[in-house]
Each structure stands twice: as structure tokens, then as C-alpha cells.
């Protein structure tokens, strides 16, 4: 299922805050584990480009946006709940295998 797909994440932060650093660590860890070699993570610091906050509809920090594949998905927070992030980004489909 979609093994050839590439993934593109944008992580919006506002300076290097503990929450943002944690979010980056988490998404890097999950990506390596599940979609190794098929992902990119771009970090956007809104302190440096504040105009992007409105354009990309950001209000919470940190926010992770799944740009590719479509549709666009957003997760806010430090991404500490692995299950929620994986299902939220559809990296791993909700467990329907087995019975």
C-alpha cells in the first residue's frame, strides 16, 4: 500500500523552544522508523518569516503540516503521542489487518 509514496512535512516553529525541538525529534524518529528514505522535513521559523503564519494558516506552535501526499493534514503539539501522529498523518493505517 503506497510504498512508493514520498512524504513531505513542514514543521512550523517560533525559535528553538523545547516544545519545537521535541516535535522535530519525534517526527524524525517516527519517519526513520516507518518511511525511511522517503521523507523530507522542512523547518519554518515564523520568527524569521512571520508572513507565512497567515498564508499557511498557522496559529499554534509547533504545527506539523503534511504537504505531500495530499490532502493537507495538520498536527499541533510536540508530537509526543506516537499512535496519534502515525494515524493522524496516515503513515500507518489504522490497524485493520488480521481478522
Amino acid at each position, binding site marked *: 500500500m503506497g510504498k512508493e509514496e514520498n512524504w513531505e512535512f513542514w514543521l512550523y516553529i*517560533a525559535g528553538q523552544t523545547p516544545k519545537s525541538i*521535541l516535535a522535530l525529534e519525534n517526527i524524525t524518529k517516527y519517519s526513520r522508523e516507518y518511511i525511511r528514505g522517503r521523507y523530507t522535513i522542512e523547518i519554518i521559523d515564523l520568527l524569521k518569516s*512571520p508572513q507565512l503564519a497567515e498564508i499557511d494558516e498557522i*496559529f*499554534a506552535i509547533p504545527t506539523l503540516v503534511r504537504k505531500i501526499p495530499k490532502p493537507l493534514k*495538520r498536527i*499541533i503539539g510536540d508530537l*509526543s*503521542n506516537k499512535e*496519534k501522529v502515525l494515524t493522524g498523518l496516515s503513515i500507518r493505517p489504522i490497524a485493520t489487518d488480521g481478522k
Partner: protein
Amino acid sequence: MKPSNVIFHKTPTGIDGLNEITGGGFPQGRPTLICGSAGSGKTVLAMQFLIKGITEYNEPGVFMSFEESEKDLTQNVRSLGFDLEKSIAQKKLKIDFVRVERSEIQETGEYDLEGLFIRLNHAIDSIGAKRVVLDTIESLFSGLENTAILRSEIRRLFQWLKEKGVTTVITGERGDTSLTRQGLEEYVSDCVILLDFRVIEQIATRRLRIVKYRGSTHGTNEYPFLIDEDGVSVLPITSLKLAHTTSSEVISTGLPGLDKLFDGGGYYRGNCTLITGTAGTAKTILAAYFALSSCRQKERVLYFSFEESPDQLTRNMLSVGINLKPFIKSKLLLIHSSRPSLHGLEMHLLSLHKYILEFQPHTVIIDPISSLVTIGSRGEVRAMLARLMDMLKMHQITTLFTSLTHEQPITYNALAEEAISSLVDTWIKVRNKEGRGSRIRSLYIEKSRGMGHSNEIWDFVVTNEGIKIINSEFSAKQGQNGSGEAGRLTANSTRNNS
């Protein structure tokens, strides 16, 4: 700390009447909370604060919307005469729509609203905004799960806005037990305004009340307000302060025969005259005479007609030799007709107020005031009439009301008379009586404050050339007895008790 040493700067609200109630406006550089139920006019009021800030005080503004998109907002306020596109193009207004859709957002772990802060900061700095509106920030609560984070972040946001020094209006939805659903009033301690929208007897009335205003005196009553094609206006007058200046200048009643009955030869400028009588006693004609008299002195007259349309009124008056048309043409006379049942009492008062402010008349005629009285409760009528007269006297407008009375006392009309007669300065009664095989009209002066007047009852006829005052029963009788002086004596004796 002595409160008297602290000067609170205020930002004009741009809303007619609200500056008076708040003693100058919203607290400058600090947040004001406007709360009310859905449809109570929060967004419109907030938008007007921004737009008038731009157009009248040259203060750019940011509107951060959590509910409506820029397009929807632009369309919704266009009917109020606000051209958002123009202000946006001039870089005086910035609208930022913060869309928070629960179904599209996942939350996991700790976050903050720094993104919102950055957005707002960027918007403020990009146009040099002095005014900010957040409408309605509580929407965040329906979009996000972690209310603990939201609460602390909203608290931080208000603090940040204060430090930023922008005058902010925050709107909040009315809660069941508290002023706002999320208790925003706890965070905004400077100024809280409550809007209310009530429908009583199928007539809708909007009201506004200042719940708190730290460090400032403010009106504590409920004030009716109006949203129409010019936006929001609030009617601030509640107290009948008898502080207006008076004039001793006399204006002709328009009817020489009637002038003669007053020692001064007419009504005092700035006074309030009431003409009461049953149906068909020529009240409107007497009113029209006065309108004509004022117009001839090149003074603007605003004629509120609650029974006849402007055309009907001018035609009917023409039939008794009163030609109002030239003055309508020269814009000295403005006749405004509306159905009394169209609005609630206070709405009527507000629209009267608006017309008066716009037209700046020297003379106002309300024909008849009794039509308005049929649509309100006793207390309301009294309060409204007091407000109305206070407003008219404040503007030093000479006023004439007519009021319909009935042969048999009918509560409403008795009410009109009762409520108004103690407030008016001059009271003329007209009546019909049957006799000598015909109906005879007559009039007399019930009272005239500060001016001696005839005490006799005068018969008059209405011809196609107007009203002709014939004679008084009293002088006719006295004439027979050979003593015409008695009438004058009685007249003089009333001088002191008025």
C-alpha cells in the same frame, strides 16, 4: 494611589452616543470586552470601531476574525456603508481570518499559540495599527481540545496586547451563567460591555450596558441602540437634567389670531408646545401654521407625521390655504412619515434623534405623539417622552406636539396627555362642540409657562383660506354686559401661577 492622579486616556469609539456613555471612549491601549448573544450586534459594533478609527481618527486597524472569512465580512458589513476593500487597499485595514476546524486538526502533546501572536504582531506592524479586534476568540475553544492551554494563552495574549499598546475590542458569546461562555471577563478587567437583543410584543429592541469600566465613571443604565444603514448608534440620554439655556425670543404661531392670545405674541423659542383635541379639531392645521411660520423666518423645520404621508399632508394643508410646497422645495421643511407600529418606542426615539442630528432643525413637529404612545407600556412611554424632550431642549429646538384625545377617556391617550402635559411649556386645547345646529370648533390655552395668556375660549372656523378665530364666548357675553375688561384681567392673573 489616589485615583484622581491617574489619567486614563480614551480612544473614541466611532459609535454615536457610546463616547458619551463611556466618558470619552474605550480605554486606550487596553482591551475592551463586548459580549452578547448571537445576533446582538457584536461584530458590527467591533467593525465600526475599526472603520471609524480609520476614516475619522486616522488610526489603522486589524480585524482578526475567528468566525467569518474576509469575503463574508466584507459582504456583511457593506449594507452598513462600510467599504472594507477600500480601507484594505489603502493599507489602513487588515483582516486576518483564523480558521480553526476541529476535524482538520490533530492535537498531540504540548503547544502554544505563538503562531497567533506572530500573525497578529505581523498584521499590526504591517499597517501600523492602533486598533485591534478579535472576533470571537472563544471560537478557539470549539476547535481545540486542550482548554488549559487555551486559557493560559488567551490570558497571555491580552497581556501581550496591553504591552503592545493597541486598543483592543474582544467579542465574546454570552454564556448561560456568565457574561461569556469561557469566562473571558475574568481576563479583561478594564472595560466590559454587554449587548442585549430582546423581542417584546413582536418588537425588537437592542440594548447596551456597561458592566464595568475600571478607573472611569460611566453610565450604568441600559441604553437602546440601533443598527441601520449608517451602522450602530446608541442613545445616551437618560436623565432629565434641567440645565438647558432658555430664550426669551418669541416665534409667531403662524396664525395672527392665535398670536394675540399670548401676551408675548407667540411661543418662546426652544419651548415645547402641546396641542390636544379630539379627532377633526384642526390640530394638524395648527401644527402646519407653525411649520409655515418657522419656514418664513428661514428656519429649518422637521415634521414627523405618523398618520399622513408627506404628499397627503401637503395636499390637505393646501386645501385650507397653507402651501408647504415651496419650503419643501427650498429644503427648509422636511416631512418624515412612518408607521408608528413599525418600530418599538425606543427605536422611534433613536430614529427621531438621528433625523434631528442630520437635518439640524430649529423646529420639530411631531404629529401626533399619541400614535407613538399606543405602542409602549406606561413606564416606557414616560421615560421615552422625557428623553425626547430633553434631547430637543438640549439642542434648543422649538417643538410642537399634537395629541389625539377621545370624548371618552381611553387609557392610552389619557396616558399621552398625562405623561406629556407636565413636561410641556405651552398647552393648547382644541375641541368640537355641537350647538346652534352646527359643529363649532373652539380653542383655549390651558397653560403657557412664563407668558401671560388669554383665559377665554375662542371659537374658530376652518375655511379654504385657513383658520379664522371669531370670538370668545366670554368676551361676547361681557360685550353684552358692557364690560370688556374682565377678560383681560383674568388673563393677567394667570401670569404668576404658570
